[in-house]
């Protein structure tokens, strides 16, 4: 439920490049898969019935590949490709060429994947393709473009992330905790010092390392004119150069720390944002992934009322707008309630998202979330609840891939996670086959409160820190009558021990975070 103004004809976000005559196609095959030869780009051609040619490129690499001291470089690189000169054509000229087609040429950078989305109506494929090709193969990385992109990224980090979106700030802070010391620590946007240092030659060199056939997977569907696929394969095969290196394993986070709390001190905040996370060894290629996903659905399926946290915190207590749980890193796809594909990680985390609560309820709300989590870990869920969530998830997940780009994205994530069976189908089938005991066992294997990391964005951070350490009861009052059972439970929640010592709590001024 939300307020929204009408946003019907979404503007195509595109950066555009001008046409350049296509090179004569090289041999159309992919590189031979000899032991000493790098693999070529992987190309998945999927069936698609609509009038739109959909392409999705995923590069194995993202912000985890930002060189030390140049945090944000992957983001700057991709954005400079999309919003800068390429193939001898300026960004404005490209924009003018692509605009009437309403074609999309956009993308985003994740920790471990960089995504380029290309969508064009069949009427315009021939005119569009050279522009796409230019972005991938011949971005110019002119200093004027890179500097502009960098400046804007710096503003997005220092103004928007720090200043205008406490929920995202909380989530990024959590990730900084979970991945501290490793190459996934910093936000995709980068850090203030990293962005300040980046220059055009850095972006160009990064492209040379990252945008390589051996790191590229492409999925496409829709109307394919004669010869286009061969042209695409040939162009992808051309993405090889001496700077290319196979994707390295991202530097793992240092040994998982015990429980910690980071509070981002934001004096002007009118409410408190909370994100809770537990590092786990489970990704989509792990047999326990489905069980943990079902557990997350039980605790808090994203933006539904199915979850226990949503019921306890919002529905029964009106504490906030929503409370959800996730068994892998999650980003919402636009305004839908479904996840964006291709934000994959090789190191995942289980998390709880508590949407902003009133300042005076923050201590109670944090306890409530941890209380529910602790209860779940100790007691599991009832047979009735298990049956309910099992049926729900099995059916609801049928809605996860309704758009072509989502479908392509899932196929590409299957490559990333080295899965042989299509993810969503297998997930739903596994939901159906799971037993309550199996779910409990999986949860016991992977989730523990010992390693819980808590990120909070709040005003009066030191006051909150003192309260957390003191661990005194933090009761709340309501503007309405509540059932006695709920009030009894409130007493337990209000007294739920956090058992934190001051050393486990760090306070970071909002002006310093991601410096």
């Amino acid at each position, binding site marked *: *439920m*939300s*307020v*929204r*103004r*009408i*946003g*019907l*004809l*979404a*503007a*195509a976000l*595109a950066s555009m490049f001008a046409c350049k005559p296509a090179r004569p196609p090289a041999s159309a095959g992919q590189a031979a898969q000899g032991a000493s030869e790098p693999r070529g780009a992987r190309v998945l051609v999927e069936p698609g019935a609509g*009038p*739109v040619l959909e392409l999705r490129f995923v590069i194995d690499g993202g912000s985890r590949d930002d060189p030390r001291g140049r945090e944000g470089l992957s983001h700057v690189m991709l954005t400079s490709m999309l919003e800068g000169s390429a193939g001898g054509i300026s960004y*404005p000229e490209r*924009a003018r060429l*692509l605009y*009437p*087609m309403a074609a999309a040429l956009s993308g985003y950078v994740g920790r471990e994947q960089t995504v380029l989305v290309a969508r064009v109506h069949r009427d315009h494929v021939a005119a569009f393709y050279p522009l796409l090709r230019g972005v991938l193969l011949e971005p110019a990385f002119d200093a004027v473009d890179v500097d*502009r992109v960098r*400046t804007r990224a710096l503003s997005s980090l220092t*103004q*928007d992330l720090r200043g*205008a979106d*406490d929920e995202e700030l909380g989530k990024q802070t959590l990730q900084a905790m979970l991945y501290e010391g490793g190459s996934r620590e910093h936000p995709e946007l980068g850090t203030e010092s990293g962005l300040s240092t980046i220059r055009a030659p850095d972006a160009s060199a990064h492209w040379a390392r990252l945008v390589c056939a051996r790191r590229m997977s492409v999925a496409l569907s829709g109307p394919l004119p004669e010869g286009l696929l061969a042209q695409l394969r040939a162009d992808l095969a051309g993405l090889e150069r001496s700077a290319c290196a196979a994707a390295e394993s991202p530097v793992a986070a240092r040994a998982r720390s015990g429980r910690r709390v980071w509070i981002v001190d934001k004096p002007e*905040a*009118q*409410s408190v*944002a909370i994100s809770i996370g537990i590092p786990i060894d489970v990704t989509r290629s792990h047999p326990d992934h489905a069980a943990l996903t079902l557990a997350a659905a039980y605790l808090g399926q994203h933006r539904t*009322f*199915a979850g226990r946290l949503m019921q306890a915190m*919002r*529905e029964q*207590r*009106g504490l*906030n*707008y929503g409370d959800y749980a996730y068994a892998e890193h999650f980003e919402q796809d636009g305004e839908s*309630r479904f996840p964006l594909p291709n934000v994959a990680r090789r190191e995942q985390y289980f998390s709880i998202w508590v949407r*902003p*609560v*009133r300042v005076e309820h923050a201590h109670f709300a944090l306890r409530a979330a941890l209380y529910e989590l602790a209860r779940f870990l100790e007691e599991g869920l009832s047979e009735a609840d298990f049956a*309910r*969530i099992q049926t*729900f998830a*099995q*059916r*609801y*997940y*049928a*809605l996860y891939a*309704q*758009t*072509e780009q989502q479908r392509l994205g899932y196929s590409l994530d299957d490559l990333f996670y080295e899965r042989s069976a299509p993810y969503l189908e297998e997930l739903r089938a596994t939901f159906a086959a799971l037993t309550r005991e199996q779910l409990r066992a999986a949860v016991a294997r992977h989730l523990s409160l010992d390693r819980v990391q808590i990120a909070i964005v709040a005003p009066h951070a030191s006051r909150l820190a003192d309260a957390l350490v003191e661990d005194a009861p933090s009761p709340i009052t*309501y*503007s*309405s*009558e*509540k059932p006695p059972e709920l009030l009894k439970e409130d007493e337990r929640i209000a007294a739920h021990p956090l058992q934190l010592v001051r050393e486990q709590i760090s306070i970071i001024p909002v*002006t310093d975070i991601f410096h």
Partner: protein
Amino acid sequence: MRRCCSFLLSCALAFFLAPGSHAQVGPFAEPPKVTRLDNGLSVVTLTWPSPGIVAYFTLVRVGARDEVEKGHSGFAHLFEHMMFRGTKRFPKDVYEQRIQELGADNNAYTTQDFTLYTLTGPAAALADMVELEADRFQHLSYDEQTFRTETGAVLGEYNKSAASPFLKMWEALSELAFARHTYGHTTIGYLADVLAMPEKYAYSQAFFRRFYTPDNTWIVVAGDVAHADVVKLVKAHYAGWRGKRDQPAIPVEREPSEGAQKHLDWDGIASPQLLIGYRAPAFDGGGGAAPARDPGAGAARETGVDARSAARDQNGELAARRSALRETAALEVVHGLLFDRSSPLYQELVVEQQLLLDLSSWTDNFSRDPGLFVVHAELSPRARFDQIQERVQAAVDALARGADEERVRAVRSHLSYGFTMNVETASDAADAFSQFLGVSGREQALAEYLAALAQVSAADVAGVAARYLARQRRFSITLAPRAVEHTKAGAP
């Protein structure tokens, strides 16, 4: 005369043929199928390929616009929340359980003009969905405790949005631009009113009776279902629904004779921003009128009006509407011409001169009553508000003197292809259709709008720029962090 109407309409549609399909309207291969029940409830089915999935949306034409009583802003939105709180037959836990059993995606949103309930699930479960929806739209029932608790969630929604300076800017702009009309407050409402909501249980219940009536409601279905099946189910479950929509007197906003500007200090981190709203016309010229019953569509009935005078009214009405839609479509083209990333203004201000970090405008911001044409700019440190405002106005004024025909065609092409490309799922289709229906009350609105768009000329574009994007119609909000002295435009 009735023949004449439909002839004109089909001409307009034919002008916009997509290759190979006579009835094609944008992404829709066929016109909507419409049935109106005796109680006024309308059922619309959109043909949309979507195997196994159906979007069963319910559109209620009530929004922030209808919140005429002081101290009661945000109630349409609050009420949207209350619609999920159950009935006697299906108390909220049971309702929620049943939705989960279907594996349905169930949500809603509220705008200034309408509230849309978006239920998407398996086509095989249509009968269950109709039963559940029919029950809550007719028999919603929640106690005061539940109401008070849910106001907490609404406050939570306000709070999560309030982290961004944008909410404050939009609130200030609305107030500045509309001294009388209810567009003067935001859909989520003033914080003071949100904080006072727990005490307004009785008011919320009255809201249901006043606005959740069959004559004010459309069921919009898209996906793997047949109209006849939908109608049969709807008739079985909603036929007993009674009520007539309340018609609060919505204050009419006078045409502006001069614009205004206001500066906001932001306590915290933010880049300086400028939000401009030009007073713009209503989507199809309609104002506070009751939902139009268009005799040209589906199975509507005349209600005791003699055919000839109805026909005369129809012609006048039709001409006025076409003219209004043409202006709306022309303004939509202005958005693309002036503020898209491909526009000269964007390229100058954002790319070349880097005076702005970003520049955008609110496309498809259609409204039932005269609303706003909105432009948003994020300033880089060395830019000044007055400077940016003047650059925007200069671009607008240049357009008012004459638009380039080829560029107008490029925007029209962008809009029509964009529509097709961005309406993909059954939910997208139902949503797109409902938005047009919500601001107009007419099932033909989307088709008529696209037909108008196909005819927009450079002269039309220059005309609306001159008529509506003039200084005396311009309202602006500037915002900057309190510590920064940012040469506020208009400051002494």
